[in-house]
């Protein structure tokens, strides 16, 4: 149950994406700085970062669109962009929004894309397109041109294009962009379903909640550097404090004060009644002692860290913020 992978486990797990000292400079600006990504088979990997932190550049380098200044990339066990021809047919991707030929229908767009690919027999094309459209919820879409699609429909079409070839790895950059809550939920369900079927998902986003709900592993990019990379469980591990909610706040506080081994921090939330944070207690034991003394307990649970706190602690403000130096600290 160790949070940090030892070298033994690192060799056991198949690496789907691995980068080593990956660096990209545009002129004098270093967009990506010595990034060492580690994505394992079966992961839903959340790639977090503020706008301008280098997420998209990294994703483009993984796909061979942007050429790295230095460093190595391995995708599905083979070097990129050197083995692009072998690797990319096994990868489905959505990079910075879908690209469509506006005068063609969704189906015609997918057919055209399929015709430019290296594989997939032609006679199964219609069936594969229908399946992909079905999966993303566009099964009954009509023949109107893609330019008449809503943002959400276009996003679904882009996902369908990524799924055309049943990829081993899905690389998705902001996939829920432009979708309504219902659509976001559908896409999340779809991605988790694909992941259960064996697809590794690499999900880049600036939406913490989205990552927190779906991902098993998280990497955080800040100013081009990977400041954090770990299993979600480890990041959201217990803080060592126990949260207690009780209507009998004062009694609880008095009682806890008599226990010298405990530290108590308390806050009172007007809507939800009293909330105490107790450090140094074993939750089950604490519960027994409170109830024994007649203190009513509404909720008692080990406190876990929120991804947001972890990420904020690891990062500075985004690059779209141009505050005065020292003013925002």
């Amino acid at each position: 149950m160790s949070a940090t992978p030892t070298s033994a486990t690192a060799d056991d797990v198949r690496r789907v994406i691995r980068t080593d000292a990956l660096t990209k400079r545009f002129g004098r600006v270093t967009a990506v700085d010595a990034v060492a990504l580690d994505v394992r088979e079966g992961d839903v990997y959340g790639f977090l970062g503020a706008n301008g932190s280098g997420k998209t550049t990294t994703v483009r380098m993984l796909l061979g669109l942007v050429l790295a200044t230095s460093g190595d990339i391995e995708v599905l066990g083979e070097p990129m962009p050197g083995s692009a021809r072998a690797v990319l047919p096994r990868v489905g991707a959505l990079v910075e929004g879908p690209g469509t030929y506006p005068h063609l229908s969704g189906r015609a767009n997918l057919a055209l894309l399929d015709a430019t690919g290296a594989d997939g027999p032609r006679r199964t094309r219609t069936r594969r397109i229908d399946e992909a459209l079905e999966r993303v919820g566009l099964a009954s879409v009509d023949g109107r041109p893609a330019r008449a699609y809503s943002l959400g429909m276009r996003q679904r079409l882009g996902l369908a294009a990524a799924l055309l070839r049943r990829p081993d790895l899905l690389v998705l950059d902001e996939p829920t962009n432009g979708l309504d809550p219902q659509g976001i939920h559908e896409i999340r369900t779809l991605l988790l379903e694909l992941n259960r079927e064996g697809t590794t998902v690499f999900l880049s986003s600036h939406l913490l909640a989205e990552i927190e709900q779906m991902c098993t592993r998280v990497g955080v990019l800040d100013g081009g550097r990977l400041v954090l990379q770990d299993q979600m469980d480890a990041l959201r591990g217990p803080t060592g404090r126990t949260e207690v909610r009780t209507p009998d706040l004062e009694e609880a506080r008095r009682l806890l004060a008599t226990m010298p081994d405990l530290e108590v921090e308390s806050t009172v939330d007007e809507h939800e009644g009293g909330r105490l944070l107790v450090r140094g207690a074993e939750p089950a034991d604490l519960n027994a002692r409170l109830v024994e003394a007649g203190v009513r307990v509404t909720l008692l649970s080990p406190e876990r860290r929120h991804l947001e706190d972890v990420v904020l602690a690891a990062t500075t403000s985004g690059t779209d913020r141009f505050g005065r130096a020292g003013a925002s600290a």
Partner: protein
Amino acid sequence: MIHAELSKLLRNRRTWGTIAIIDALPTLVAVLLAMTDLGPRPGTGPAFLSAVLTDGTLFPLAALAMVLPLFLPIAVALVAGEAVAGEAQQGTLRYLLIRPVGRTRLLVAKLVAVMAFVVVTVLVVAVTSYVVGVLLLGDQTVTVTGPTTSISGSPMSTPELVGRTGLAFAYAMLCMLGVAAVALFLSTVARSPLGAAMGAMTLLVASTLLLTLDAAQALHPYLLTRHWLAFVDLFRDPIRWDEVVRGVLVQGAYVVVFLGAAWASFTTKDITD
């Protein structure tokens, strides 16, 4: 890949719109000639035009001479300028490249599609101008009913005419390949398809202007458009090869240099749009 590019080209309404516009000019000229019966005096005006008043079957060549200097190259600049920059602007370039389509292969497919556009355009112009020529001008033949004459005045047999027309067609294709190479290179550099097309058109206009300027005489042999109308020489008797050969060399140089530049620029480019 080439199949997909051709299908993209032929399914685009704009392709056919462009061809229709190009086709409209010679058709208009034929109508005007037929109505007014006023041809340019022999030796002036567009090549062959003075001859078509007596023989409508020659009108396709006159039409080609009309569209080649301006209309066709502008259309080629537009289509080739859009080749890479247009895909980039639509956001489809990155999806093509991660299919994956090799960058060199994509360039070749784009170039083939542009040349296919030229062939289709020239064929459409040839067929319509032949039909229009025969319908409107063909029956005006008053004096000559014998074999078609070369522009040097001697008679030409039909197989000879077909052969020379083929040569002229190949020469015109090479000229358009030169424009396509320039526009394709700009298309790999420019952010917008319009920018690439405008760049190529600027070169065309500059070349045409410099050709009228005596002070630029030293540059004349190297200008893109310098030898374009040399295909007329293929219809002289005997054929005057020297300018045609020089034209082939100049166009060849443009094609090699700019396609090389396009390849070098595109295969090392960061695709960030």
